[in-house]
């Protein structure tokens, strides 16, 4: 059961096609698990369709249809769409994983991360794997960080997040994710700025955060 969804603003920007690529990838990953948001998107797209009908028509070059038909006949712009694999992971994620060799980097004893190539520069897109029972170092967010749980679950002081859950952290949200004890947790992460680990140093700067020993 999914309990954490993107808000209507993010869904609207996705439906209208103005959301940045990386964040849209996170939304698509969530939609793989979430019928409720998928339904909302369809309603939002209906609004787009209805608005399209209300625009004032702009005349098109008279030969446009004929040149279109000749392009179609010549088979130009024929695009082969790759068949989708039905699987546990969202298509968008497995496609990125299939097209590159993942380089897992160890952050600490329980957290590994691998960058994903998402074709944009605004965000860092990565996979994060937390070992069963593992604890991620407490960290702050300099930018917006979206996490979509792909497998397993994790929790922090605000709640438990399971497969499909969409978690958005704003700058200044400090949290310390903790994986469920019985299975590894795999997440998709989209961050607008590198996550700053709040370790020993920042404890001094930020006396309100209690540092727990992992």
């Amino acid at each position, binding site marked *: 059961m999914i309990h954490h969804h993107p*808000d*209507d603003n993010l869904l609207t920007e996705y439906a209208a096609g103005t959301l940045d690529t990386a964040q849209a990838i996170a939304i*698509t990953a969530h939609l793989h698990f979430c019928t409720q948001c998928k*339904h909302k998107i369809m309603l939002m797209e209906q609004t787009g369709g*209805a608005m*399209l009908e209300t625009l004032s028509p702009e005349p098109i070059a008279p030969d*446009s249809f004929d040149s*279109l038909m000749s392009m179609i006949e010549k088979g130009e712009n024929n695009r082969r769409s790759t068949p989708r694999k039905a699987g546990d992971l969202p298509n968008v994620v497995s496609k990125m994983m*299939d097209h590159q060799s993942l380089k897992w980097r160890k952050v600490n004893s329980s957290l590994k991360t691998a960058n994903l190539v998402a074709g944009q520069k605004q965000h860092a897109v990565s996979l994060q794997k937390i070992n069963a029972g593992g604890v991620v170092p407490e960290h702050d967010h300099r930018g917006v960080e979206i996490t979509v749980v792909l497998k397993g679950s994790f929790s922090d002081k605000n709640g438990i997040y399971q497969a499909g859950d969409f978690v958005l952290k704003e700058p200044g949200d400090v949290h310390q994710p903790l994986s469920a004890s019985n299975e590894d947790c795999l997440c998709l992460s989209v961050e607008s700025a590198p996550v700053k680990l709040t370790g020993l140093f920042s404890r001094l700067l930020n006396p309100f955060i209690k540092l727990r020993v992992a």
Partner: protein
Amino acid sequence: MDTLPSTKQHLKVWNDHLMNVGRSQDRQAFKALFEHFGPLLKSYFMSKFPSQHSVQMMDELVQEVMIKVWQKAMTFDPSKAAASTWIFTLARNTRIDMLRRQSKYATTSSLETEDIWDDTTEDGPYQLLQHNRDSSQIQTSLKQLPEEQSLVIRKVYMESKSHSEVAEELNLPLGTVKSRVRLAQSKLQSLIKR
């Protein structure tokens, strides 16, 4: 030009044309779709890219959408989405495609726009789709929105502006734009669901 679709009958015409293109590559039906939607699509592209691009390029974007209509019509399922809704998603994706083509980073990715913004109507949630209302009903609902909300929602959908771009243009705090969008969406959705 055609008059605005105002009856279910009229909307069914576009759905049927799409079905015929999908089933039998019906050129007459395709031409009718082109003549109706082409000028609307051009208007859509022009509102996003006013004056920066040549008129010819706008016509090419329209052609690009219509090629997708031709190629993908067999995947169109009228029980899941109205013709105008599906064509809107194709236009949206064509615009995103164009922007991605201009970005040097997009080429490093194995992802196509359709991997990120689904344009198929096939795998929509079945059980939830009694809500496939006709667009005239949504148009009526749109007219009932307060002016400040409909202005924002129009800029978001038809001018393809992000919330922050809308905030900047209208000289409003981002939070105000966000709440107007949310209010408009919840109003529209409650009207649609009724």
